[in-house]
């Protein structure tokens, strides 16, 4: 196998681009160019390296950014949706519900009542991207445990939603 490090370095540039420019239109071709890869090859190697497709990563980053706004500022749900790069409130709300496990309005209310803890933002950026899984593998994690780590990372998602993680 050839040295994966140079590939990771290029892939990370695209991933960082998502973290930085999540609010704008970012298609796979743009991201692939940032990673100096062909479009077809890029999505596959991104998933191999980071365990999810560029599109999934971007979607979860947008939801995380919106959740941060809803937690810490007084913005409305529709403002948070726009700020995070969603074109319609409907697609934002359903993505939020799917990944976080509750509606944006309920989430905002819960955290405003509870006062979000003062955790440095770089850590919330890295550790609070929602992991609620749209993938069908949630019930079969233990069955997959004998498979190789590389294979597993392509199909598995951590089982806990952000809500569950917070209530622990």
């Amino acid at each position: 196998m050839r040295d994966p490090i140079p590939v990771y370095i290029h892939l990370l540039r695209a991933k960082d681009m998502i973290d930085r420019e999540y609010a704008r239109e970012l298609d796979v071709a743009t991201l692939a160019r940032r990673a100096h890869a062909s479009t077809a090859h890029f999505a596959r190697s991104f998933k191999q390296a980071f365990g999810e497709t560029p599109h999934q990563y971007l979607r979860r980053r947008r939801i995380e950014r919106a959740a941060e706004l809803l937690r810490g500022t007084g913005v409305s749900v529709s403002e948070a949706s726009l700020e995070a790069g969603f074109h319609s409130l409907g697609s934002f709300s359903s993505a939020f519900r799917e990944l976080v496990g509750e509606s944006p309005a309920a989430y905002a209310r819960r955290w405003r009542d509870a006062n979000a803890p003062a955790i440095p933002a770089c850590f919330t950026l890295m550790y609070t991207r929602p992991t609620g899984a749209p993938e069908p593998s949630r019930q079969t994690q233990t069955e997959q445990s004998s498979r190789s780590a590389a294979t597993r990372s392509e199909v598995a998602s951590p089982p806990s939603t952000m809500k569950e993680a917070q209530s622990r």
Partner: protein
Amino acid sequence: MIEKLTHTTVWVLDQDEALEFYTQKLGFHVHTDARMDDFRWLTVSPPKQPEHEIILLEPGPPMMDDESAEQVKALVAKGILGAAAFETSDCRATYAQLSERGVSFLSEPAKRPWGTEATLRDNSGNWFSVTER
């Protein structure tokens, strides 16, 4: 009792390139650059904290077998490892200055309850908070 933290290890992919990044881009000072046969002990310090040494260390033998070293390098290159938090008296000015020098940021300066914070990436892939309190 233990009184202070004096050294912090940051895993880097290439010591020469890390040295250039930490001194030329971030403005840190070289504390020690010494060699003992093949081992290079390379440490840098933030400008206002000359007593704290950040050890810029390449994963490798004999500390690590080749396979472990490759695993650590892969984690660094994939940007998984977050090393520490830096302090600045002016986050926005520091962001502008470092961006000008080509430093990559993951998040722009934003106000938080405790101050203003941005997140940068070093040239190996490690991420750091840059916070003004």
